[in-house]
């Protein structure tokens, strides 16, 4: 049976301190786990869900895959949406091509022309592809199909083997063209209230007659209007 006398001198001090300390003070205590909710995951549990990969290769697992092996994986799981050579099908994304188009009128943002990091390819294929069965590929299959898609974009040679050492070293053609600091606000306006334009106002473009707008009344518009 519990008795206060059974607390040693130190424990008694803690007991009384805990009782006396106002709640609000305790709520701001900096030590971890104040509320003590939840359970502590095992290393195995963390490893199972910790699937993210960084550009420096952090997170890449053991295993490997060649361009040739990747071709078979690609044809089985990827070509039906992305096309035999990564050219895209319907409105599913193109994976290859588009070099030199980023400043053009119709830019093609593909893995080869746009993506800044090869690690992201491994990460995304592994976490979300194939579209209809995410996270169903083995690590070796992901390495292989990563190698194949890089090869489709002429970024690696046909004898390339992807693994946790080779992949972070792959340099993506467009990696230098990103600004990672937001330069906005990039437009500074004065608030003008009257006679704000030098020229007469005119309409340059109108949505009228373009026939692109789905129905906004009645049942949902299921069809393609284009």
């Amino acid at each position, binding site marked *: 049976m519990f008795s206060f006398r059974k607390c040693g001198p130190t424990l008694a001090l803690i007991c009384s301190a805990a009782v006396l300390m106002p709640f609000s003070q305790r709520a701001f205590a900096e030590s971890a786990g104040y509320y003590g909710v939840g359970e502590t995951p095992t290393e195995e549990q963390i490893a199972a869900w*910790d699937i993210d990969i960084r550009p*420096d290769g952090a997170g890449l697992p053991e295993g490997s895959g060649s361009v040739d092996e990747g071709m078979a994986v690609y044809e089985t799981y990827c070509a039906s949406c992305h096309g035999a050579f990564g050219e895209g099908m319907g409105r599913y994304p193109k994976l290859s091509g588009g070099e030199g188009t980023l400043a053009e009128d119709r830019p093609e943002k593909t893995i080869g022309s746009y993506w800044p990091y090869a690690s992201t390819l491994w990460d995304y294929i592994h*976490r979300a592809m194939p579209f209809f069965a995410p996270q169903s590929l083995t690590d070796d299959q992901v390495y292989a199909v990563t190698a194949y898609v890089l090869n489709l974009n002429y970024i690696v040679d046909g004898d390339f083997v992807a693994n946790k050492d080779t992949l972070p070293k792959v340099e993506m053609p467009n990696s230098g063209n990103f600004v990672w600091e937001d330069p906005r606000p990039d437009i500074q306006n*004065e608030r003008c209230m009257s006679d704000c334009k030098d020229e007469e*106002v005119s*309409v340059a473009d109108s949505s009228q007659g373009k*026939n692109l707008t789905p129905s906004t009344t009645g049942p949902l518009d299921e069809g393609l209007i284009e």
Partner: protein
Amino acid sequence: MFGKLRRLSLDVSKTALEESQKLPSSERRQFLRSGLFTAGGAMVGGALAGLAPGALAKSKYPPENPSWTLSLGPGVVADPYGMPSPFESEVIRRNVPWLTADKVSSISFTPLQHLKGIITPNGLFFERHHAGRPEVDPQQHRLMIHGLVERPIILSMADLQRLPSVSQINFIECPANGGMEWRGAQLNSLQFLHGMVSCAEWTGVRLSTLLQEVGMKPEGKWVLAEGADGAAMTRSIPMAKALDDVIVAYAQNGEALRREQGYPIRLVVPGWEGNTHVKWLRRLEVGDKPWMQREETSKYTDLMADGSARGFTWVMEAKSVITSPCPEMPLGQKGVYQIEGLAWSGNGKVKAVDVSVDGGMNWQQAPLREPVLSKSLTRFALEWAWDGNPALLQSRVIDETGYVQPTLHQLRKARGSNSIYHKNAIQTWKVNADGSVINVQLS
């Protein structure tokens, strides 16, 4: 008996709706825009707009008494979870079929033209799915927090609800809202042009509370948020924002999150682009660097005219739009109208909204309607006597940082027209002499 009465009261609208549905969509829109149905002053959004004028007169005009005055209605819990009136059945989220390859990785648009106030009803909040909407069992769902922390944890939904909670009203906007219009005017609809923004009261636990609970290591500078859907959607969030106003939300407008909004839990990252508000949240990892995931490299980066690209453009800059009149809400006869709309800023509160009826030559400040909250939708309304002549309507927001909403011309000059994201330009609606309203772009 009640069934019979309900049938009676529905008959009239059903006939009109059936009539309008026989028309091809373009004619149906014209039919609804013709102004005939607003003559009685009833600018009602739903199926009511499809009522034939004769039927309308017969059913509700004095001295006649309508059937619902002369009978009993269904009792309480006839709808244990209430549904909108059947006359509002057209007030729904809609999608643009040609926009994406598949509906499971697509977006739906909020019918802003039919909404009042600043809160978006949960069933009308725009949706963005990258792998369809998962059906998550909250009993089985877990949130794991790990990485550069002293005490990694796995939380059940019950664990999470034991922690102190906060509620805050915030908008969420997809950075692609209006993105189809960088090159020119395409869609003739408020809903499709601006409906990737919605606003709700979110309730949940501050991310700072959770990070304090696990004890961050000093090297922890970023947080990766990951969803439990088939896209296992991820975004890297810098620690300063994570500790500022981000919450792990489990409730939306007083009820559990809707499934489309990440049930049972999602991140709410006030003022930042919608995709950072990771839905069906299952993992938070603290790290020393960003992860450069697909959604922050291939997508949600802004391509400039010179071929360079901007990443980490998280904030949704100030924007406003007139919601009435608009293409779906044409004018009737000339006379006094309220030019009404919504304004918001990811950088804080709306300070003022100006309205122009002459394409931006002259402006008038529009009164704001309370409440005016930070990183929330704000409603404005300005009285306008329409003389029946064509007009070019615009609204322009100024936020508390002093930022003045730019024109599309200015945005194109600064960024070209390949950017896709963050188009917060002033919208122009052209009012024609017949009262119809068209989406236009000025020179």
